[in-house]
């Protein structure tokens, strides 16, 4: 009910619950008869409701996709988040590229870190992170070592 919770309103809510309980326990033939009495067509109603449900699935899937995108964006922001020390980022990328067990299959151009723009550096680190080329806690571990 709209309005503040009061004993009388709670009473009306309980009555609604009882009415719903009755709807759920009414035999199929009686429920369908009630629908017909009100001018409804059970088959048409079912078809409309099914179509409504299918639209709800599409809405639910869009919602899930939006949530997944938001989650990915949050993760990306967390990884790159805040001001980036570009010198450190270049140093890190160079270290990854120079390491013996560094990522396989990088292009020759990508190996010339000094020729890359700052945004390319950040983007490449991000891509390498996504590829699992360095551990997720790389930042934290380095931070701990520095402290």
């Amino acid at each position, binding site marked *: *009910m*709209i*309005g*503040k*919770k*009061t004993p*009388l*309103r*709670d*009473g*009306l*809510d*309980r*009555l*609604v*619950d*009882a*009415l*719903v309980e*009755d*709807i*759920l*326990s*009414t035999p*199929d*033939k*009686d*429920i*369908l008869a*009630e*629908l017909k009495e009100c001018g*409804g067509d*059970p*088959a048409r*109603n*079912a078809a409309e*409701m*099914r179509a*409504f*449900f299918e*639209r*709800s*699935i599409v*809405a*639910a899937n869009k*919602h*899930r996709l939006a949530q997944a995108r938001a989650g990915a964006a949050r993760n990306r922001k967390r990884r790159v988040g805040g001001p980036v020390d570009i010198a450190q980022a270049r140093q890190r990328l160079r270290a990854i590229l120079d390491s013996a067990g560094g990522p396989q299959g990088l292009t020759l151009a990508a190996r010339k870190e000094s020729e890359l723009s700052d945004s390319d550096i950040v983007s490449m680190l991000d891509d390498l992170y996504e590829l699992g080329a360095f551990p997720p806690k790389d930042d934290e571990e380095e931070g701990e070592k520095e402290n």
Partner: protein
Amino acid sequence: MNSALASATRSRDEIVDAIRNLMPADWARLRKVAHRYSFGRPIEPDDLLQEGFLRALDSRKCPKHVDVVKFLAEAMRSIAHGEAEKAEYRLTLVSIDKTGDEQNQALDHKDPDPNSEETMVSEQDAALIRTALLALFDDDAIARDIVEGTMEDLSAEELRELTGLDKTAYDSKRRFIRRTIDKAYPEGWKP
């Protein structure tokens, strides 16, 4: 989640399948339930139904032993109650730019606790509806007792004992009550 618990709940796909396979009577029930739970609440039946579907698909766990129509009905009930609470505790936001006195206006927001005047109005609305509902059964003392007792939180067993009805007669009377209220309030009651 352990395997026993996982096997006890329906997966999303199982919920979808169960809903897709509902019979015409189940769809008729769901429509009625959505109407009933939107009575006097700031949400339309179709929106309530869609929210119920969304919750069922995305955020609620449906035990395998629970009928999917009952599960959706419970989801709608929960949403309807949540909508009512949101309406109760919604604060009125006032732009500071428009007030010219940010300190007073910013601090002069509505107290979410019911004050005595609001409680009285709310009780008056509910009292009017209650009186009108009971008046529908002025010539049927048993039905009136069941309606009044239900609002007073008596259980079905207590009501059967009070009215002397067996389970079949009680169910039949409750159905009569619902249909009488349906006819009197096809669009629900407004406070």
